[in-house]
């Protein structure tokens, strides 16, 4: 059952070949068997899941339900879930039981989906390897000595190993796409503002966006359809109708214009990864797409720009954790100052502390112009690069990451080396455009992902291209040994 597509699961549930309770129990059993090796879940909500499954079965028996009714999923532990611990991978929120649901939790519950549990993640989504979690690192199902990528490492490990058919995730600088690439999944970060951020614990508010990791573009389209849309509770949510993502999947690609940014194929890209991307380009050409080189001349400045903007926003957002209203509180502080400092010193891990300090520094008096204002100007240059590119092409294609998954511990002592993992993914967040990663081959027996970037609100076209590619290839159907 865990290898069926969401469409197949939906058809089987409607035909009563198995019940949602049976399906849910199957995934709960797999979690029990395999998760000790992977550490993909922070919390497994078995009772809640079976209750939701029974409710879904009742709806299925009554007929007239939506396509997602009765299908299980994992929720990244960054989304608030009423009555369920919501840790954000941090000691700070280790005992935080959310008093409300995130909008996307409400929407997916409303669509009849069954939450299996909360997926592990880098602390406050700050990381590219899922090694900064208070709950320990997540392992890559393709090689347990390697990282699954981050920050949505638990979401991808759960889906890649068949411990959930699909999962939610979030992406501030690549946290959906890079882990999807490293675990052979399809992951989509929609346009900024397309999916509500209400109830999604904030990291960098002008960059954060929620999305999906799945086994295919079709699966991702089905779940994104249910998540997307205007939400008055999120002040940056966009009032604009949502396209029909699944209806667009079948369109032929004849005439699709694809741009290859030359900066994405420069020094640093592993030759094995490059080979996979070049082969994927040939597949798109055989499907009728035209390909040309484009330039994103300021893309190399994405990482330095991001490491001003994101920490600046993070230092402001994380100021709310004060040991007073919720979250970790130190014992025995004598003064208010001491209460703040020790609660935050104990509650936050090293990577979060580094980013809070970088953010505090770049926003401080005398440095604001040189760092923050400068970064905001370069952000516009990066955005303008994409505007020019999308005047010439429909989609931009390149690698998602420079290399395949690296070994646990390889980069934990060198923050800058870790940051460079997101060299190809950050630009889309800075510009606000949608982007996705999908499987396009293997190098050294490890998955390689390619990235598609689209113009604002062009998710349907991106998913269409990815789906057509997946009709012509079978990389996305391969399964890690040991999790069959």
């Amino acid at each position, binding site marked *: 059952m865990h290898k069926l597509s969401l469409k197949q699961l939906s058809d089987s549930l409607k035909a009563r070949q198995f019940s949602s309770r049976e399906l849910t129990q199957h995934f709960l059993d797999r979690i029990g068997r395999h998760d000790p090796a992977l550490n993909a879940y922070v919390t497994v909500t078995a009772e809640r899941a079976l209750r939701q499954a029974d409710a879904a079965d009742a709806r299925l028996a009554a007929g007239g339900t939506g396509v997602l009714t009765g299908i299980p999923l994992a929720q990244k532990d960054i989304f608030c879930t009423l009555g369920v611990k919501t840790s954000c991978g941090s000691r700070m929120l280790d005992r935080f039981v959310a008093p409300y649901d995130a909008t996307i939790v409400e929407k997916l519950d409303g669509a009849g989906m069954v939450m299996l549990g909360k997926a592990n993640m880098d602390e406050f989504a700050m990381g590219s390897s899922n090694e900064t979690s208070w709950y320990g690192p997540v392992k890559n199902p393709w090689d347990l000595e390697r990282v699954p990528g981050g920050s949505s490492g638990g979401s991808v490990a759960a889906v890649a190993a068949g411990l959930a058919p699909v999962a939610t995730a979030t992406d501030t600088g690549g946290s959906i796409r890079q882990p999807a690439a490293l675990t052979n999944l399809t992951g989509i970060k929609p346009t900024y503002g397309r999916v509500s951020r209400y109830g999604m614990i904030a990291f960098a508010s002008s960059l954060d966006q929620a999305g999906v990791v799945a086994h295919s573009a079709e699966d991702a389209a089905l779940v994104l359809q249910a998540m997307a849309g205007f939400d008055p509770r999120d002040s*940056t949510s966009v009032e604009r109708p949502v396209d029909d993502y699944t209806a667009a999947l079948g369109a032929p690609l004849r005439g699709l214009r694809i741009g290859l940014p030359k900066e994405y194929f420069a020094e640093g890209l592993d030759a094995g990864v490059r080979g996979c991307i070049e082969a994927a380009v040939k597949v798109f050409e055989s499907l009728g797409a035209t390909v040309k080189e484009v330039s994103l001349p300021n893309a190399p400045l994405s990482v*330095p720009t991001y490491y001003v903007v994101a920490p600046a926003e993070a230092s402001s957002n994380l100021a709310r954790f004060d040991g007073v209203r919720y979250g970790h509180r130190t014992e025995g502080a004598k003064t208010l100052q001491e209460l703040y400092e020790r609660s935050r010193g104990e509650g936050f891990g090293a990577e979060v502390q580094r980013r809070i300090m970088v953010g*505090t520094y770049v926003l401080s008096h005398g440095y604001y112009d040189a760092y923050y204002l400068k970064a905001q100007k370069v952000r516009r240059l990066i955005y303008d690069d994409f505007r020019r590119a999308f005047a010439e092409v429909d989609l931009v294609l390149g690698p998602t990451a420079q290399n395949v998954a690296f070994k646990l511990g390889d980069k934990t002592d060198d923050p800058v080396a870790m940051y460079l993992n997101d060299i190809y993914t950050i630009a889309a967040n800075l510009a606000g455009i949608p982007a996705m990663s999908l499987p396009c081959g293997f190098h050294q027996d490890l998955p390689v992902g390619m990235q598609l970037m689209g113009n604002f609100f062009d998710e349907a076209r991106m998913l269409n291209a990815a789906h057509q590619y997946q009709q012509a290839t079978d990389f996305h159907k391969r399964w890690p040994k040991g999790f069959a």
Partner: protein
Amino acid sequence: MSLSPEQIKQVAHLARLSLPPEKVEPYARQLSNILELVGQLSNAATDDVAPMAHPLDMVQRLRPDAVTEEDRRDAFQAIAPAVENGLYLVPKVIE
């Protein structure tokens, strides 16, 4: 741009983070490396470029001036580390 241990202590104070003494030196080294990475920005030509704070060209949405949220004080205080009689408890701030 490199940060001295003294500067790290000052930044940590501004950010309300207590740092054990043995962490100051590693943080100084790591933050200096991060600022060196960020220093690449100074080479970019940005004269006459308007700063971009946000990816979407949007204005703050307004709504009718009506009460829409219910009172959930009890639910929110139930998750606080220390409350008494509906008040959040902190160490004494006035002698």
